[in-house]
């Protein structure tokens, strides 16, 4: 086979300049969208998942505020069920809910709905594991001083597990970032959408690679900030 090297170089060059153009025009918005969706979805997932995580811990039979058995079973089943659905399938399944809430199923904002639904059960489990880490003696100490279940949750369980909650929030946000990128396939915005549109539909490998690199950088940034905050917030360490 004969390939004209000059021709190949020419294509490379054109692909590069196109990629650079996309990088300058579309990437800034895409990065903004990705961060916006990821952060907002994480916050909302925590708003739902953290209370559920608390219920999972305190509502147990020997917890500080036992809840009816049927309720605990139901809660566990719902969480496990949602967690076992692959994200893209869940996204399709919740289209009616998305439409009802946002009015449309495509676009950056619309993708927040399935992201939150996919992430809150995960966050509930993460919160549960953080809250379980705390020394049960501390809870007993608070009880011996006459603390109510609500006071134990707000003054002992949550404050004492802050470092672990921050670590787990970091795991949550990086996972949600991954889901967010995936949502690009089904109408979500951001870096994932660019990667799929250019890389998959139009064979613009360079654009796709750039998008992936940016996703990696974002994960690194979130992880670094999260780890720093977790360490900084932990007063158990002698600093």
């Amino acid at each position, binding site marked *: 086979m004969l390939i004209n090297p000059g021709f190949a170089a020419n294509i490379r060059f054109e692909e590069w300049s196109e990629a650079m153009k996309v990088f300058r025009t579309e990437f800034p918005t895409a990065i903004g969208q990705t961060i916006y969706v990821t952060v907002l979805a994480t916050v909302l997932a925590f708003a739902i998942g953290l209370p559920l995580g608390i219920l999972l811990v305190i509502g147990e039979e020997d917890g500080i505020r036992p809840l009816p058995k049927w309720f605990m079973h139901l809660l566990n089943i719902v969480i496990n069920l949602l967690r076992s659905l692959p994200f893209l399938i869940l996204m399709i399944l919740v289209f009616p809910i998305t439409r009802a809430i946002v009015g449309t199923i495509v676009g950056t904002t619309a993708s927040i709905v399935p992201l939150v639904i996919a992430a809150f059960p995960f966050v509930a489990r993460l919160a549960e594991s953080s809250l379980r880490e705390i020394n049960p003696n501390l809870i007993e100490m608070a009880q*011996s001083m*006459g603390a109510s279940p609500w*006071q134990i949750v707000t003054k002992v369980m949550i404050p004492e597990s802050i470092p672990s909650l921050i670590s787990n929030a970091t795991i949550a946000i990086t996972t949600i970032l991954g889901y967010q990128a995936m949502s690009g396939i089904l109408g979500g915005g951001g870096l994932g959408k660019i990667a799929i549109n250019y890389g998959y539909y139009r064979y613009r490998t360079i654009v796709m690679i750039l998008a992936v690199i940016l996703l990696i950088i974002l994960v690194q940034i979130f992880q670094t900030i999260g780890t720093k905050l977790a360490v900084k917030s932990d*007063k158990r360490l002698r600093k």
Partner: protein
Amino acid sequence: MIEIRNLTKTFATNDGSVEALKGINLSIPDGVVYGVIGMSGAGKSTLVRCMNLLEVPTEGQVLYQGTDLAQLSAKELREKRREISMIFQGFHLLMQRTVLSNVCFPLELIGTKKDEAEKRAMELLKMVGLEDKANVYPAQLSGGQQQRVAIARALATEPKVLLCDEATSALDPATTNSILELIRSLQQQLNLTVVVITHQMSVIEKICQYVVILENGAVAEEGPVEEVFSRPKSRAAKKLVYPDESADGGIIVGPGEHFLRVIYNGSESARKPLIAQLARDTGILANIAYASTKSVNERAFGTMILSIKGSQEDADKAMEWMKTVEGIIVEEVNEDVN
């Protein structure tokens, strides 16, 4: 007054049930330091945990100032618990809060205003000698300092009773002494009733007026410390008071040898040259086979075993003589000292 009536506690475990307490009857008067001693697993922790209902009695009652704690509603119980504070072997400080904020914790629970709570917490930290550590975190303190914080915290809501479960077991002897001293002085200043759990005789000797000896979930012996320690009746008490004697299986009485146990019960006589006087007055020579004396509430207590070589008459004569000495009790030791 804390009254414990026929208290039984049974734990259900995977391999059968454990009877941790078997029909305990006790009454703890107000304003005393009351010791609970016993071997590991005797049920000491379970007993005090029943006193603030951290453990719900299986049978029997815990009456605090005449109220049966088990009959209270959840809310009433929470209120009562503020009068019955507890400190633990592991201190149980909130690690993400400063020392000051830890002491404020029980005040926060009852809704005390922040500045008021902090003022009170500072006073308490002064009482336990840690006012300069107010703004550090517990992880930066030594064990003894952490226990002081826990004591300050336990006293924040002005409780009437302080339960101490092995409060000094994680500390070295010098720190143990300083914590015990602190507990005793606070007890006197605030007229607290203090219940001290320990497996160390020295702790009881240092600060308790009353003691109960638990053995396998039952009361082996109970009463004023001086009485129990000078004339232990039960096997469990003897084991605690004469640990060395029983450790090597007791003293073996050889032919023509007699052993007399001399018990000092806290008077001045411990300082007199007893053996020399015995020899001078009766001509009987005694040898010390074993001796252990200690100071309980600043008075001398102890036990000594004298060996006398000679006839039974000599031994009786020596006994008669010693019975005239004030402040000691004497008895002949036959076979096994246990």
